[in-house]
């Protein structure tokens, strides 16, 4: 019987196209947007050769031209596509947008650009390095004229790296924070489903609630079956989102997948509990309940720093209690702690607190649901 109830409720949920869209498709859409929009921010793989012009101004410029021609990115893409011309032509080319910039002079090259975007910055920093290195060479040659024979030029051209990330197998993952936030928000989105479950079962909230209230099924049993069905359907969306991020857009979540699943599961319950709690205890119209829920989840997300990272640190230092009772914050904290810490202490604290909150919400919701009798409604 319970199984029948569970399956029926599951069918109801899956057939609700709107809820399915927000829960299943929307997070995936957002994840794709993050991926497409931010993925390149930290990479220079997609570098395209920049068209520039060079105006020698009659100076001896052969060596500088050679340097420009030889410039390559670390992936071996040629940096500049150079047109040699006089300043009038260069200006016209720049005006038309055929070139990104033009360079004048060779000993102290000057840069003429149209705007101040990324490409201009790349050209400028390349010229800066050239100038700095040529000053180095001049300074050294003054005191040590034999330096050229000692391999000065090769030394100058060589670029060593002196800093590396701590060796704990964690690649810097700038995007990870966004994906964690998305996952956390999807968890807490379960609140909408929790609200729905309560509305569907309470006689004073919906017609269907009134109908099931007169049926012979104990209310608690029905409620638990329904919540379980909602959890199944919602957790399915989390798994789908996770698989999409992990296998399709290849987000590197590290070696903590099981821990991540566990906190998602607790988070999903906390969301359901929160929704149910608001559904039972806010005695207002359905729209008002939904609005309160939205404010609660968005407010929680705001305080946990999803919109502005600084907020999180402000809350953590000024109102520490708030960060311990905000379910969204606990969710993101347990996820971030998987990334930042090698030990699981902080993860356990946060997840446990989240679990406690889920249980408190659940108990309060049940207290509100049980023992409601109506002679007439």
């Amino acid at each position: 019987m319970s199984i029948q109830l569970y399956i029926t409720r599951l069918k109801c949920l899956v057939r609700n196209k709107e809820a399915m869209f927000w829960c299943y498709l929307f997070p995936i859409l957002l994840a794709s947007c993050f991926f497409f929009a931010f993925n390149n921010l930290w990479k220079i793989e997609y570098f395209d050769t920049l068209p520039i012009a060079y105006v020698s101004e009659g100076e001896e410029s052969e060596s500088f031209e050679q340097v420009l021609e030889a410039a390559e990115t670390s992936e071996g893409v040629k940096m500049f596509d150079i047109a040699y011309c006089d300043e009038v032509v260069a200006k016209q080319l720049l005006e038309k947008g055929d070139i990104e910039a033009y360079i004048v002079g060779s000993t102290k090259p000057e840069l003429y650009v149209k705007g101040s975007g990324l490409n201009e910055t790349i050209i400028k920093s390349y010229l800066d390095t050239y100038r700095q290195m040529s000053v180095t060479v001049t300074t050294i040659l003054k005191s040590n004229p034999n330096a050229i024979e000692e391999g000065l030029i090769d030394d100058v051209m060589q670029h060593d790296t002196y800093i590396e990330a701590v060796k704990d197998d964690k690649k810097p993952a700038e995007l990870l924070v966004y994906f964690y936030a998305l996952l956390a928000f999807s968890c807490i989105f379960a609140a909408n489903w929790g609200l729905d479950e309560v509305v569907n079962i309470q006689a004073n909230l919906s017609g269907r609630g009134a109908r099931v209230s007169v049926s012979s099924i104990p209310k608690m049993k029905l409620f638990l079956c329904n919540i379980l069905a909602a959890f199944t359907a919602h957790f399915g969306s989390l798994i789908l989102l996770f698989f999409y991020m992990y296998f399709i857009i290849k987000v590197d979540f590290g070696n903590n997948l099981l821990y991540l699943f566990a906190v998602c599961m607790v988070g999903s319950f906390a969301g359901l509990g929160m929704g149910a709690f608001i559904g039972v205890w806010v005695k207002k119209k359905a729209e008002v309940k939904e609005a309160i829920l939205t404010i609660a989840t968005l407010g929680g997300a705001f305080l946990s720093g999803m919109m502005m990272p600084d907020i999180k640190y402000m809350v953590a230092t000024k109102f520490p209690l708030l960060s311990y009772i905000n379910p969204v914050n606990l969710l993101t904290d347990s996820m971030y702690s998987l990334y930042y810490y090698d030990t699981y202490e902080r993860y356990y604290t946060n997840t446990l607190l989240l679990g406690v909150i889920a249980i408190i919400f659940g108990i309060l919701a049940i207290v509100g649901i049980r023992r409601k009798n109506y002679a007439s409604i």
Partner: protein
Amino acid sequence: MQVFKAYYKILKSQLTAVLIYVALFLMLTILFTGNLKDNSNQFETKKVPVMVINEDGQNGLLDSFLSYLEEYVVYVEPKAGADAIKDALYYREVSYIITIPKGFSDSFYENGEINLTKQAAPDSMEAITIDQAIDNYFNIARVYQGHLPETTAEEISSYVQANLKEQTRVHLYGEQKDSVSAGHSFNRFYYNYLGYIIVAAFITSVSTIMFSFHGLDIRRRHFASPITERNLNGQLILANMIFVIFYLVIFIVAGYALNKYRAVNTNTLLFWLNAFTFALVTLSISYLIGISVKSKKAISALSTAVSLGIAFLSGMFVPQEFLGAPVLKVASFTPAYWFVKANGAIETLTTSSWSEISKIASFMAIQLGFAAAIISIALVVSKRKRQQIS
């Protein structure tokens, strides 16, 4: 003008949603522009809080390195214990931790293998700048060290610092006044974001209204009324246009008021014109959505999905130059891409020469082309709907 009036009656029911978008957008704009520096043209490096854990002890090389780095960072007192260090990073007291391992200086002089290690917050954009600053210092120091072995660490440090001051002179073509170009960059930022708001708000409101007018019963009622089809559509178009213009005027006025470097010039006018063009395209999209969807709930889903999708892909949120080539290829099939591109071109427009303006005009023409294409699809859909029996 019954249709016209009915339009605004339905619009009233969507007003909250539309106004929320207005309020949200203006709030965010004020928040963001409050953060912008007054002299937004001069690039100023923000100093990053950094913790240095020095296991190598003090010596000339490290002292001068650390004093050099002070140009880029603020030092935070190092903490004891691995957990306390991680906590500092976690709560963002610092965004970057440098560990100088034991034997680093000796290894540096002997071209050894020991490197500094870093831990950076995963979303810290400044980390790259610090990486570069560190590499620059040691690379130049290495060259001096190699070829002028008898110089002291202090001398090397002063050489390096003098070297790094060498900067390329950059001339901004057209020599715009700083305040003028700052005004343009504000406008570019403002109107790019506005594109997202236009899409989100228009689909929410206009689509809902069009949906209401295209219900089967409503259409049948219309056929039975003495108002001709042309009259009906005329009133709808007029109502839509007035809504678009009114909505845009709010934003144009707000954008003008919020802009610290406000000025009315060719560029500003072009920004307005471009926003209007894009609003027309969005109007056609909203119309198409309004007459094709089957339920009102689908509209709010589509409004969020379409607006966010378009905004992310076409460079409204992230500048186009940061997007990958394949993404841009796909994006160029959306009108928003050309809207953003036009805004970019308008920002850098310095002369009112025809060649430059014609380029911008072509971007707007492409947007209008999209509008025409979408309207033709909408007409087909609407024709089909008219022939539908139930």
